[in-house]
Protein backbone atom coordinates (compact mmCIF):
# COMPACT_ATOMS: atom_id res chain seq x y z
CA UNK A 1 0.00 0.00 0.00
CA UNK A 2 2.10 2.90 -1.18
CA UNK A 3 0.10 4.55 -3.90
CA UNK A 4 -1.85 6.96 -1.71
CA UNK A 5 -2.62 10.38 -3.11
CA UNK A 6 -1.73 11.89 0.22
CA UNK A 7 -2.17 15.57 0.97
CA UNK A 8 -1.16 17.97 3.70
CA UNK A 9 -3.99 19.11 5.97
CA UNK A 10 -3.98 22.17 8.17
CA UNK A 11 -6.56 23.57 10.56
CA UNK A 12 -5.97 27.12 11.68
CA UNK A 13 -7.52 28.81 14.70
CA UNK A 14 -10.72 26.76 14.47
CA UNK A 15 -13.60 27.89 16.64
CA UNK A 16 -16.99 26.29 17.12
CA UNK A 17 -19.82 26.93 19.55
CA UNK A 18 -23.10 25.15 20.11
CA UNK A 19 -25.12 27.91 21.74
CA UNK A 20 -23.19 28.92 24.86
CA UNK A 21 -21.04 25.80 24.69
CA UNK A 22 -17.71 26.84 23.20
CA UNK A 23 -16.52 23.41 21.97
CA UNK A 24 -13.46 24.42 19.96
CA UNK A 25 -11.53 27.45 21.16
CA UNK A 26 -8.96 28.18 18.50
CA UNK A 27 -7.51 24.84 17.46
CA UNK A 28 -4.41 24.58 15.27
CA UNK A 29 -3.59 21.21 13.76
CA UNK A 30 -1.07 20.56 11.01
CA UNK A 31 -0.67 17.15 9.42
CA UNK A 32 2.19 16.87 6.97
CA UNK A 33 1.63 14.78 3.85
CA UNK A 34 2.15 11.07 4.49
CA UNK A 35 2.26 11.41 8.28
CA UNK A 36 -0.06 10.35 11.06
CA UNK A 37 -1.27 12.76 13.70
CA UNK A 38 -3.02 11.32 16.70
CA UNK A 39 -5.31 13.40 18.85
CA UNK A 40 -5.73 12.36 22.46
CA UNK A 41 -7.55 13.82 25.42
CA UNK A 42 -10.39 13.23 27.86
CA UNK A 43 -13.97 12.66 26.68
CA UNK A 44 -15.72 15.87 25.80
CA UNK A 45 -12.51 17.67 24.99
CA UNK A 46 -13.68 18.30 21.40
CA UNK A 47 -11.55 15.71 19.57
CA UNK A 48 -14.35 14.14 17.56
CA UNK A 49 -15.87 17.53 16.88
CA UNK A 50 -12.53 18.71 15.53
CA UNK A 51 -12.57 15.91 12.93
CA UNK A 52 -16.11 16.83 11.90
CA UNK A 53 -15.15 20.45 11.53
CA UNK A 54 -12.06 19.64 9.50
CA UNK A 55 -14.08 17.76 6.87
CA UNK A 56 -16.90 20.29 7.23
CA UNK A 57 -19.55 17.90 8.46
CA UNK A 58 -19.90 20.82 10.86
CA UNK A 59 -18.97 24.26 9.59
CA UNK A 60 -16.52 26.13 11.84
CA UNK A 61 -17.59 29.51 13.24
CA UNK A 62 -14.14 30.87 12.64
CA UNK A 63 -10.75 29.76 11.36
CA UNK A 64 -9.50 28.16 8.17
CA UNK A 65 -8.92 24.69 6.76
CA UNK A 66 -6.21 24.13 4.16
CA UNK A 67 -5.59 21.10 2.02
CA UNK A 68 -2.20 21.19 0.32
CA UNK A 69 -1.88 24.81 1.34
CA UNK A 70 -5.13 25.97 -0.25
CA UNK A 71 -8.17 27.03 1.77
CA UNK A 72 -11.11 24.69 1.21
CA UNK A 73 -13.76 26.67 3.05
CA UNK A 74 -15.13 28.13 -0.18
CA UNK A 75 -15.24 24.76 -1.97
CA UNK A 76 -18.31 22.59 -2.18
CA UNK A 77 -18.16 20.67 1.12
CA UNK A 78 -19.37 17.47 -0.58
CA UNK A 79 -16.36 17.55 -2.87
CA UNK A 80 -14.03 18.19 0.07
CA UNK A 81 -15.41 15.15 1.86
CA UNK A 82 -14.76 12.97 -1.17
CA UNK A 83 -11.08 13.79 -0.61
CA UNK A 84 -11.13 12.96 3.11
CA UNK A 85 -12.09 9.46 4.20
CA UNK A 86 -13.65 8.98 7.62
CA UNK A 87 -14.01 5.96 9.89
CA UNK A 88 -16.39 6.09 12.84
CA UNK A 89 -16.52 4.59 16.29
CA UNK A 90 -19.83 2.86 15.50
CA UNK A 91 -18.72 1.73 12.00
CA UNK A 92 -21.90 3.16 10.44
CA UNK A 93 -22.02 0.63 7.64
CA UNK A 94 -25.25 0.75 5.64
CA UNK A 95 -27.18 -2.24 7.02
CA UNK A 96 -29.53 -2.53 4.05
CA UNK A 97 -26.66 -3.07 1.60
CA UNK A 98 -24.22 -5.92 1.20
CA UNK A 99 -20.60 -5.47 2.19
CA UNK A 100 -19.56 -5.02 -1.45
CA UNK A 101 -22.35 -2.51 -2.07
CA UNK A 102 -21.30 -0.55 1.00
CA UNK A 103 -17.88 -0.12 -0.57
CA UNK A 104 -19.02 0.43 -4.15
CA UNK A 105 -21.93 2.82 -3.53
CA UNK A 106 -19.89 6.01 -3.62
CA UNK A 107 -17.79 4.69 -6.51
CA UNK A 108 -20.88 4.21 -8.62
CA UNK A 109 -22.82 7.32 -7.61
CA UNK A 110 -20.03 9.83 -7.09
CA UNK A 111 -17.15 8.52 -9.18
CA UNK A 112 -19.66 7.37 -11.83
CA UNK A 113 -18.00 3.99 -12.31
CA UNK A 114 -20.05 1.29 -14.02
CA UNK A 115 -21.56 -1.38 -11.82
CA UNK A 116 -18.94 -3.95 -12.80
CA UNK A 117 -16.02 -1.56 -12.46
CA UNK A 118 -17.25 -0.42 -9.05
CA UNK A 119 -17.67 -3.96 -7.84
CA UNK A 120 -14.22 -4.97 -9.05
CA UNK A 121 -12.75 -1.96 -7.31
CA UNK A 122 -14.72 -2.75 -4.14
CA UNK A 123 -13.51 -6.36 -4.14
CA UNK A 124 -9.94 -5.15 -4.47
CA UNK A 125 -10.37 -2.87 -1.45
CA UNK A 126 -12.03 -5.66 0.52
CA UNK A 127 -9.12 -7.91 -0.35
CA UNK A 128 -6.74 -5.37 1.17
CA UNK A 129 -8.59 -5.56 4.48
CA UNK A 130 -8.86 -9.36 4.25
CA UNK A 131 -12.62 -9.53 3.76
CA UNK A 132 -13.13 -10.27 0.09
CA UNK A 133 -14.90 -13.50 1.02
CA UNK A 134 -17.53 -11.48 2.90
CA UNK A 135 -18.44 -9.35 -0.11
CA UNK A 136 -22.00 -10.63 -0.35
CA UNK A 137 -22.77 -10.77 3.37
CA UNK A 138 -24.78 -8.18 5.22
CA UNK A 139 -22.93 -6.02 7.75
CA UNK A 140 -25.09 -7.40 10.58
CA UNK A 141 -23.58 -10.83 10.00
CA UNK A 142 -20.03 -9.60 10.53
CA UNK A 143 -18.18 -9.17 13.80
CA UNK A 144 -17.42 -5.65 14.96
CA UNK A 145 -13.83 -5.93 13.86
CA UNK A 146 -14.85 -7.09 10.41
CA UNK A 147 -17.41 -4.30 10.14
CA UNK A 148 -14.78 -1.73 10.99
CA UNK A 149 -12.41 -3.15 8.40
CA UNK A 150 -15.18 -2.90 5.81
CA UNK A 151 -15.74 0.71 6.88
CA UNK A 152 -12.04 1.37 6.31
CA UNK A 153 -12.25 -0.26 2.86
CA UNK A 154 -15.31 1.87 2.09
CA UNK A 155 -13.39 5.04 2.92
CA UNK A 156 -10.23 3.93 1.09
CA UNK A 157 -12.16 3.07 -2.07
CA UNK A 158 -12.62 6.77 -2.73
CA UNK A 159 -8.82 7.17 -2.86
CA UNK A 160 -8.83 9.88 -0.22
CA UNK A 161 -5.91 12.22 0.35
CA UNK A 162 -6.45 12.14 4.10
CA UNK A 163 -8.05 9.57 6.42
CA UNK A 164 -9.85 10.45 9.67
CA UNK A 165 -10.31 7.84 12.38
CA UNK A 166 -12.77 8.76 15.11
CA UNK A 167 -12.10 6.38 18.01
CA UNK A 168 -12.19 3.57 15.48
CA UNK A 169 -11.52 0.82 18.01
CA UNK A 170 -13.46 2.11 21.03
CA UNK A 171 -16.59 0.09 20.29
CA UNK A 172 -14.74 -3.17 19.62
CA UNK A 173 -14.30 -6.18 21.87
CA UNK A 174 -10.72 -6.29 23.13
CA UNK A 175 -9.72 -9.27 20.99
CA UNK A 176 -10.90 -7.50 17.83
CA UNK A 177 -8.99 -4.28 18.43
CA UNK A 178 -5.65 -5.59 17.24
CA UNK A 179 -6.81 -6.49 13.74
CA UNK A 180 -8.10 -2.96 13.16
CA UNK A 181 -5.05 -1.32 14.71
CA UNK A 182 -2.79 -3.50 12.54
CA UNK A 183 -4.63 -2.29 9.45
CA UNK A 184 -4.34 1.33 10.55
CA UNK A 185 -0.64 0.82 11.18
CA UNK A 186 -0.22 -0.58 7.66
CA UNK A 187 -1.92 2.50 6.24
CA UNK A 188 0.26 4.83 8.26
CA UNK A 189 3.42 3.02 7.23
CA UNK A 190 2.20 3.03 3.63
CA UNK A 191 2.25 6.80 3.54
CA UNK A 192 -1.40 7.71 4.10
CA UNK A 193 -2.00 11.08 5.73
CA UNK A 194 -4.04 10.29 8.82
CA UNK A 195 -5.70 12.07 11.72
CA UNK A 196 -6.45 9.54 14.43
CA UNK A 197 -8.59 10.40 17.42
CA UNK A 198 -7.88 7.57 19.80
CA UNK A 199 -7.77 6.20 23.31
CA UNK A 200 -5.18 3.63 22.23
CA UNK A 201 -2.07 5.14 23.79
CA UNK A 202 0.10 2.37 22.35
CA UNK A 203 -0.91 3.28 18.81
CA UNK A 204 -0.54 6.98 19.49
CA UNK A 205 2.93 6.50 20.89
CA UNK A 206 4.32 3.91 18.50
CA UNK A 207 2.69 4.68 15.17
CA UNK A 208 1.91 8.38 14.98
CA UNK A 209 4.42 11.01 13.95
CA UNK A 210 2.87 13.76 16.04
CA UNK A 211 0.57 13.74 19.04
CA UNK A 212 -1.85 16.48 19.95
CA UNK A 213 -3.33 16.57 23.43
CA UNK A 214 -6.64 18.41 23.65
CA UNK A 215 -8.60 19.40 26.70
CA UNK A 216 -11.70 21.60 26.97
CA UNK A 217 -11.55 22.72 23.36
CA UNK A 218 -7.91 23.84 23.26
CA UNK A 219 -4.66 22.19 22.24
CA UNK A 220 -2.73 21.86 25.49
CA UNK A 221 0.38 20.20 24.12
CA UNK A 222 1.52 18.94 20.77
CA UNK A 223 4.70 17.40 19.45
CA UNK A 224 6.46 14.13 18.69
CA UNK A 225 5.13 11.16 20.69
CA UNK A 226 8.38 10.59 22.61
CA UNK A 227 8.28 14.10 23.97
CA UNK A 228 4.62 14.04 25.02
CA UNK A 229 4.65 10.59 26.54
CA UNK A 230 8.02 10.71 28.31
CA UNK A 231 8.31 14.33 29.33
CA UNK A 232 4.87 15.98 29.41
CA UNK A 233 5.26 19.65 30.22
CA UNK A 234 1.79 20.48 31.50
CA UNK A 235 -0.01 19.21 34.59
CA UNK A 236 -3.09 18.54 32.51
CA UNK A 237 -1.25 16.11 30.22
CA UNK A 238 0.57 14.55 33.17
CA UNK A 239 -2.77 14.00 34.90
CA UNK A 240 -4.37 12.59 31.76
CA UNK A 241 -1.50 10.18 31.11
CA UNK A 242 -1.48 8.92 34.68
CA UNK A 243 -5.23 8.31 34.34
CA UNK A 244 -5.02 6.31 31.12
CA UNK A 245 -1.67 4.54 31.26
Amino acid at each position, binding site marked *: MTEFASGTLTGKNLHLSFGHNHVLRGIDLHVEKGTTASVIGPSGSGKSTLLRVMNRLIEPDQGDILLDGRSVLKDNPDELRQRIGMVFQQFNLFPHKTVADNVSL*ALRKLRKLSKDQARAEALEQLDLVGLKHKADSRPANLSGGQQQRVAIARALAMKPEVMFFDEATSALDPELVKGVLALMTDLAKGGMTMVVVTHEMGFSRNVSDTVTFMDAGVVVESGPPEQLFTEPRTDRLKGFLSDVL
Partner: protein
Amino acid sequence: MDLLDQLADTFFNWEEMAKVIPALLAVGLPNTLILAVASGIFGSLLGLGLAMMGISRNAGARWAARIYTDIFRGLPAILVILVIGIGLSPIAREITGSRNPYPLGILALTLIAAAYIGEIFRSGIQSVEKGQLEASRALGFSYGSSMRLVVVPQGIRRVLPALVNQFISLLKDSSLVFMLGLAASDREIFRIGNDAMANTGNLSPLVAAGVLYLILTVPLTHFVNFIDNRLRTGKPEKKEPDELAAPIGKGAQA
Protein backbone atom coordinates in the same frame (compact mmCIF):
# COMPACT_ATOMS: atom_id res chain seq x y z
CA MET B 1 -86.67 -22.35 16.40
CA ASP B 2 -88.59 -19.98 14.18
CA LEU B 3 -86.51 -17.12 15.45
CA LEU B 4 -83.27 -18.95 14.70
CA ASP B 5 -84.46 -19.83 11.22
CA GLN B 6 -85.39 -16.23 10.65
CA LEU B 7 -81.95 -15.06 11.80
CA ALA B 8 -80.25 -17.65 9.62
CA ASP B 9 -82.30 -16.49 6.64
CA THR B 10 -81.49 -12.83 7.34
CA PHE B 11 -77.73 -13.31 7.48
CA PHE B 12 -77.01 -16.50 5.60
CA ASN B 13 -79.48 -16.81 2.79
CA TRP B 14 -77.32 -18.75 0.37
CA GLU B 15 -79.50 -17.99 -2.61
CA GLU B 16 -79.23 -14.24 -2.12
CA MET B 17 -75.51 -14.57 -1.57
CA ALA B 18 -75.03 -16.64 -4.69
CA LYS B 19 -76.90 -14.02 -6.69
CA VAL B 20 -74.63 -11.18 -5.59
CA ILE B 21 -71.28 -13.00 -5.67
CA PRO B 22 -70.65 -12.66 -9.45
CA ALA B 23 -71.08 -8.88 -9.26
CA LEU B 24 -69.00 -8.71 -6.08
CA LEU B 25 -66.12 -10.48 -7.78
CA ALA B 26 -66.42 -9.05 -11.29
CA VAL B 27 -67.22 -5.42 -10.42
CA GLY B 28 -66.83 -4.80 -6.70
CA LEU B 29 -63.48 -6.46 -6.13
CA PRO B 30 -61.59 -4.75 -8.97
CA ASN B 31 -63.04 -1.36 -8.05
CA THR B 32 -62.19 -1.71 -4.39
CA LEU B 33 -58.67 -2.76 -5.32
CA ILE B 34 -58.27 0.11 -7.79
CA LEU B 35 -59.46 2.64 -5.22
CA ALA B 36 -57.23 1.26 -2.47
CA VAL B 37 -54.13 0.58 -4.55
CA ALA B 38 -54.26 3.86 -6.49
CA SER B 39 -54.77 5.97 -3.38
CA GLY B 40 -52.17 3.83 -1.58
CA ILE B 41 -49.56 4.60 -4.23
CA PHE B 42 -50.41 8.29 -4.64
CA GLY B 43 -50.77 8.61 -0.87
CA SER B 44 -47.31 7.10 -0.38
CA LEU B 45 -45.72 9.51 -2.84
CA LEU B 46 -47.45 12.52 -1.28
CA GLY B 47 -46.74 11.10 2.18
CA LEU B 48 -43.03 10.79 1.41
CA GLY B 49 -43.01 14.44 0.37
CA LEU B 50 -44.79 15.38 3.60
CA ALA B 51 -42.27 13.34 5.62
CA MET B 52 -39.32 15.07 3.95
CA MET B 53 -40.96 18.43 4.66
CA GLY B 54 -41.62 17.34 8.23
CA ILE B 55 -37.92 16.75 8.91
CA SER B 56 -36.71 19.66 6.79
CA ARG B 57 -34.54 22.38 8.28
CA ASN B 58 -36.91 24.87 6.67
CA ALA B 59 -39.46 25.90 9.29
CA GLY B 60 -42.01 26.87 6.64
CA ALA B 61 -41.92 23.40 5.11
CA ARG B 62 -42.25 21.81 8.56
CA TRP B 63 -45.25 23.98 9.36
CA ALA B 64 -46.96 23.27 6.06
CA ALA B 65 -46.57 19.52 6.59
CA ARG B 66 -47.77 19.83 10.17
CA ILE B 67 -50.91 21.76 9.23
CA TYR B 68 -51.75 19.42 6.36
CA THR B 69 -51.34 16.39 8.59
CA ASP B 70 -53.39 17.85 11.42
CA ILE B 71 -56.26 18.66 9.10
CA PHE B 72 -56.47 15.40 7.17
CA ARG B 73 -55.85 13.19 10.16
CA GLY B 74 -58.25 15.16 12.28
CA LEU B 75 -61.28 14.99 9.98
CA PRO B 76 -63.58 11.99 9.56
CA ALA B 77 -62.84 10.22 6.27
CA ILE B 78 -66.44 10.45 5.15
CA LEU B 79 -66.44 14.23 5.54
CA VAL B 80 -63.29 14.59 3.43
CA ILE B 81 -64.69 12.29 0.76
CA LEU B 82 -67.95 14.25 0.54
CA VAL B 83 -66.31 17.67 0.60
CA ILE B 84 -63.70 16.77 -2.02
CA GLY B 85 -66.01 14.59 -4.11
CA ILE B 86 -68.82 17.12 -4.29
CA GLY B 87 -66.90 20.34 -3.84
CA LEU B 88 -64.33 19.71 -6.54
CA SER B 89 -66.67 18.07 -9.05
CA PRO B 90 -67.33 21.29 -11.04
CA ILE B 91 -63.59 21.83 -11.41
CA ALA B 92 -63.03 18.18 -12.30
CA ARG B 93 -65.81 18.42 -14.91
CA GLU B 94 -64.17 21.54 -16.33
CA ILE B 95 -60.80 19.82 -16.64
CA THR B 96 -61.74 16.29 -17.67
CA GLY B 97 -65.17 16.82 -19.17
CA SER B 98 -66.47 13.94 -17.12
CA ARG B 99 -69.04 13.82 -14.35
CA ASN B 100 -67.60 10.62 -13.00
CA PRO B 101 -66.88 11.07 -9.26
CA TYR B 102 -64.55 8.06 -9.23
CA PRO B 103 -61.26 10.00 -9.68
CA LEU B 104 -62.34 12.43 -6.98
CA GLY B 105 -62.93 9.46 -4.70
CA ILE B 106 -59.34 8.38 -5.32
CA LEU B 107 -58.16 11.94 -4.72
CA ALA B 108 -59.97 12.17 -1.39
CA LEU B 109 -58.65 8.80 -0.24
CA THR B 110 -55.16 9.84 -1.37
CA LEU B 111 -55.26 13.07 0.62
CA ILE B 112 -56.34 11.21 3.76
CA ALA B 113 -53.84 8.38 3.28
CA ALA B 114 -50.98 10.82 2.69
CA ALA B 115 -51.48 12.40 6.11
CA TYR B 116 -51.16 9.05 7.87
CA ILE B 117 -48.45 7.65 5.60
CA GLY B 118 -46.45 10.87 5.93
CA GLU B 119 -46.38 10.41 9.70
CA ILE B 120 -45.42 6.75 9.31
CA PHE B 121 -42.55 7.63 6.95
CA ARG B 122 -41.40 10.48 9.17
CA SER B 123 -41.18 8.28 12.25
CA GLY B 124 -39.33 5.63 10.25
CA ILE B 125 -36.84 8.07 8.76
CA GLN B 126 -36.23 9.71 12.12
CA SER B 127 -35.57 6.32 13.71
CA VAL B 128 -32.53 5.76 11.46
CA GLU B 129 -29.36 6.37 13.47
CA LYS B 130 -27.75 9.76 12.95
CA GLY B 131 -24.49 7.97 12.10
CA GLN B 132 -25.99 6.73 8.83
CA LEU B 133 -26.49 10.23 7.47
CA GLU B 134 -23.11 11.25 8.84
CA ALA B 135 -21.31 8.31 7.21
CA SER B 136 -22.99 8.97 3.90
CA ARG B 137 -22.15 12.66 4.00
CA ALA B 138 -18.58 11.84 5.01
CA LEU B 139 -18.27 9.80 1.80
CA GLY B 140 -19.14 12.95 -0.12
CA PHE B 141 -22.87 12.48 -0.78
CA SER B 142 -25.09 15.56 -0.63
CA TYR B 143 -27.94 15.73 1.89
CA GLY B 144 -30.46 14.80 -0.81
CA SER B 145 -28.47 11.83 -2.12
CA SER B 146 -27.79 10.63 1.41
CA MET B 147 -31.49 10.68 2.21
CA ARG B 148 -32.41 8.95 -1.07
CA LEU B 149 -29.73 6.26 -1.04
CA VAL B 150 -29.12 5.58 2.63
CA VAL B 151 -31.59 7.01 5.13
CA VAL B 152 -35.01 6.81 3.49
CA PRO B 153 -34.67 3.18 2.27
CA GLN B 154 -33.83 2.09 5.80
CA GLY B 155 -36.61 4.19 7.31
CA ILE B 156 -39.21 2.75 4.95
CA ARG B 157 -38.09 -0.80 5.68
CA ARG B 158 -38.67 -0.26 9.37
CA VAL B 159 -42.22 0.98 8.91
CA LEU B 160 -43.40 -1.63 6.40
CA PRO B 161 -45.74 -3.20 8.98
CA ALA B 162 -47.34 0.16 9.71
CA LEU B 163 -47.66 0.79 5.98
CA VAL B 164 -49.49 -2.48 5.42
CA ASN B 165 -51.80 -1.60 8.30
CA GLN B 166 -52.47 1.70 6.60
CA PHE B 167 -53.29 -0.14 3.38
CA ILE B 168 -55.78 -2.32 5.26
CA SER B 169 -57.38 0.87 6.50
CA LEU B 170 -57.56 2.18 2.95
CA LEU B 171 -59.19 -1.02 1.71
CA LYS B 172 -61.95 -0.53 4.25
CA ASP B 173 -62.26 3.23 3.86
CA SER B 174 -62.60 2.87 0.10
CA SER B 175 -66.16 1.73 0.85
CA LEU B 176 -67.03 5.30 1.83
CA VAL B 177 -66.71 6.41 -1.77
CA PHE B 178 -70.22 5.00 -2.28
CA MET B 179 -71.46 8.31 -0.85
CA LEU B 180 -70.51 10.05 -4.07
CA GLY B 181 -72.99 8.03 -6.13
CA LEU B 182 -71.10 5.85 -8.54
CA ALA B 183 -72.16 4.44 -11.89
CA ALA B 184 -73.15 0.76 -11.78
CA SER B 185 -69.88 -0.38 -13.28
CA ASP B 186 -67.86 1.73 -10.82
CA ARG B 187 -69.39 0.31 -7.66
CA GLU B 188 -67.05 -1.19 -5.10
CA ILE B 189 -67.65 -4.17 -2.81
CA PHE B 190 -69.70 -2.45 -0.14
CA ARG B 191 -71.95 -0.61 -2.56
CA ILE B 192 -72.79 -3.78 -4.45
CA GLY B 193 -73.64 -5.60 -1.25
CA ASN B 194 -75.62 -2.62 -0.04
CA ASP B 195 -77.60 -2.28 -3.29
CA ALA B 196 -78.44 -5.97 -3.29
CA MET B 197 -79.56 -5.70 0.31
CA ALA B 198 -81.76 -2.73 -0.49
CA ASN B 199 -83.34 -4.57 -3.42
CA THR B 200 -84.03 -7.81 -1.57
CA GLY B 201 -84.52 -6.64 1.99
CA ASN B 202 -82.16 -9.42 2.99
CA LEU B 203 -78.81 -8.80 4.73
CA SER B 204 -77.01 -11.78 3.20
CA PRO B 205 -75.45 -9.83 0.29
CA LEU B 206 -73.84 -7.48 2.82
CA VAL B 207 -72.59 -10.48 4.76
CA ALA B 208 -71.08 -11.81 1.53
CA ALA B 209 -69.44 -8.40 0.97
CA GLY B 210 -68.12 -8.55 4.51
CA VAL B 211 -66.64 -11.99 3.92
CA LEU B 212 -64.92 -10.69 0.79
CA TYR B 213 -63.38 -7.81 2.81
CA LEU B 214 -62.13 -10.32 5.37
CA ILE B 215 -60.60 -12.48 2.63
CA LEU B 216 -58.61 -9.40 1.61
CA THR B 217 -57.72 -8.01 5.02
CA VAL B 218 -57.08 -11.03 7.25
CA PRO B 219 -54.15 -12.39 5.17
CA LEU B 220 -52.71 -8.87 5.09
CA THR B 221 -52.91 -8.67 8.88
CA HIS B 222 -50.98 -11.90 9.16
CA PHE B 223 -48.56 -10.71 6.50
CA VAL B 224 -47.90 -7.70 8.77
CA ASN B 225 -47.06 -9.98 11.66
CA PHE B 226 -44.76 -12.00 9.43
CA ILE B 227 -42.74 -9.04 8.13
CA ASP B 228 -42.77 -7.48 11.58
CA ASN B 229 -41.10 -10.60 12.94
CA ARG B 230 -38.71 -10.83 10.01
CA LEU B 231 -37.68 -7.20 10.46
CA ARG B 232 -37.14 -7.72 14.16
CA THR B 233 -35.08 -10.89 13.97
CA GLY B 234 -33.69 -10.69 10.44
CA LYS B 235 -33.34 -13.45 7.92
CA PRO B 236 -31.71 -16.40 9.62
CA GLU B 237 -28.07 -16.42 8.50
CA LYS B 238 -25.18 -17.93 10.34
CA LYS B 239 -22.77 -15.57 12.01
CA GLU B 240 -19.20 -16.75 11.79
CA PRO B 241 -16.53 -15.84 14.29
CA ASP B 242 -13.91 -13.34 13.18
CA GLU B 243 -11.10 -15.40 11.72
CA LEU B 244 -8.55 -12.88 12.97
CA ALA B 245 -9.96 -13.06 16.47
CA ALA B 246 -8.54 -16.49 17.19
CA PRO B 247 -4.80 -15.94 16.53
CA ILE B 248 -4.76 -12.55 18.28
CA GLY B 249 -7.31 -13.54 20.88
CA LYS B 250 -7.05 -14.53 24.49
CA GLY B 251 -3.73 -16.33 24.26
CA ALA B 252 -1.97 -13.43 22.59
CA GLN B 253 -3.50 -10.94 25.04
CA ALA B 254 -1.83 -12.51 28.04
